[in-house]
């Protein structure tokens, strides 16, 4: 069922973020520095984005042998069960081990780092397959590779802003407020994916990339603010309070996502004559258009209390 696909996949996009918190707290990601939880978020969202982008070009949702909704989630609950049996301190509180790399670089490694790094490695392998298939399909359909890659640019921009903000932030936003930070970015990610899926469902590709960038508007401000504090300001103080920016980004992203989700739900259900959360039927919009002979039909259902 068609709107089910949109609902299912955008819920999955949100789950990528919410699961990051559950796994991050399980593997004690905060102990190894603030970047570990960002890596965990990337492990969830990156393959998801690539799989959605591939579906956009090939028209087929392809889940490879090792995929997120089956094997990835299985790995998560196995991790959590084993942690519960063995003990969190024994398993994830070990270390840090000091590793000396060539070039006199010292690393202090914790188990969470190893966990996140192996996830990144798996995501990389997954990405190569998706990238190859997506680019081949785009070429076969007469789209340029440049345009196909440009559809990935909002996600790349999102990740770049996330990494830059958390690296330059004077107050270490990823360490002090990981939940608020990633909730905002997770909503932005879900918005991007919902746009991509809707464009695929409706075969409407004009102004897609512009619409996707619109949800990232607060991020340049935040990154610029952090960069100013880091590189320009003598006292290391940012222009705008980082906490306020963090909450602004979170609220803005949530507002954009919820508004978009409600509009899309209204449009699709009215057009197909269904409801989102019940099995009842109403007169579909396409039928009303046929009957009235107008471009805009007249709303057939009289039950105003039931919008979705």
């Amino acid at each position, binding site marked *: 069922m*068609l709107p*089910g696909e949109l*609902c*299912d996949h955008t*819920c999955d996009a949100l*789950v990528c973020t919410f*699961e990051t*918190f*559950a796994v*991050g*707290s*399980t593997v*004690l990601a*905060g102990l190894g520095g603030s970047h570990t939880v960002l890596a965990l978020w990337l492990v969830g969202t990156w393959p998801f984005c690539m799989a959605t982008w591939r579906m956009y070009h090939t*028209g*087929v949702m*392809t*889940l490879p*042998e090792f995929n997120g909704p*089956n*094997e990835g*989630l299985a790995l*998560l*609950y196995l991790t*959590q069960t084993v942690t*519960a049996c063995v003990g*969190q*301190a024994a398993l994830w509180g070990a270390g840090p081990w000091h590793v000396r790399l060539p070039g006199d670089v010292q690393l202090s490694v914790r188990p969470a780092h190893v966990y996140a790094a192996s996830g990144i490695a798996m995501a990389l392998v997954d990405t190569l397959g998706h990238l190859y298939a997506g680019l081949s399909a785009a070429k076969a359909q007469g789209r340029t590779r440049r345009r196909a890659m440009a559809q990935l640019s909002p996600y790349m921009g999102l990740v770049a802003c996330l990494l830059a903000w958390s690296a330059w932030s004077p107050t270490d936003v990823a360490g002090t407020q*990981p*939940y608020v930070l990633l909730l905002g970015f997770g909503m932005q990610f879900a918005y991007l994916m919902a746009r991509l899926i*809707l464009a695929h469902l*409706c*075969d409407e590709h004009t102004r897609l990339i512009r619409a996707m960038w619109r949800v990232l508007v607060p991020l340049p401000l935040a990154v610029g603010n952090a960069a100013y504090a880091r590189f320009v300001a003598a006292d290391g103080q940012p222009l705008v309070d980082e906490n306020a920016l963090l909450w602004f980004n979170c609220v803005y992203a949530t507002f954009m996502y919820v508004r978009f989700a409600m509009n*899309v739900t209204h*449009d699709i259900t*009215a057009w197909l*004559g269904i*409801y*989102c*959360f*019940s*099995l*009842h*039927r109403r*007169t579909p*919009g396409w*039928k*009303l258009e046929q*009957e*009235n*002979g*107008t471009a*805009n*039909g*007249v*709303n*057939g259902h*009289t*039950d105003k209390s*039931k919008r979705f």
Partner: protein
Amino acid sequence: MPRTRAAAAAATAAAVPKGDSKANGHANGHTQQAIRYRTIGHRGRAALLRYKYSAVDRSIIAPYLQPLWTRVVDLIPAWVAPNCVTTSGLALVVLSSALAYLHSPHLDAPLPTWVLLAHAALVFTYQTLDAVDGKQVRKAFWPTHASFLSALTHPRCRALLVPALISLAQQARRTGSSGPLGASRFHLYDPNRSRRLLCSQCPNPALTRSFSACVARGAV
């Protein structure tokens, strides 16, 4: 609210005369509004009607979990919308991250064992619900999204078959007909007769209603 497509179409045709562009004087006082599509254009709406979902799943562990998913979808009633299944899965994961926030706001505090086990259970349930919602589509939107064999096991199908057999048996006994085939001639010529008969015989109002809906739709 009209329950069936046919009834809804009939109601609309009665309320809105053809070519009436104003169409705001509704019989029961409701002001009718034109549908405003904010996110999907003309071309997109036309494409929506043609769209067909296709997926390839080469997952390793999915075949081992299939028996569980098949059992779980039997537990979910057929009147539950598939999107409700998906959204409740999301709610479970949100609950999981809320637990994480309460016990470890900076992701560095050790969690109690029950929270770890709850995380695992919630993710597992989410995975199950996520896999089951596709099966629920086939179950809830029977028979348009289901195969013939799975349609036979559907509760709505059983709800139709059982009273139909009862009414056939009643007819055969009353008329002294030679068999159920002879009795079913009445149903072919007069669908209202079978409905009336069913309404008088069937003790379950839900079954009667679903059967009447089918008659109205022209399915029986």
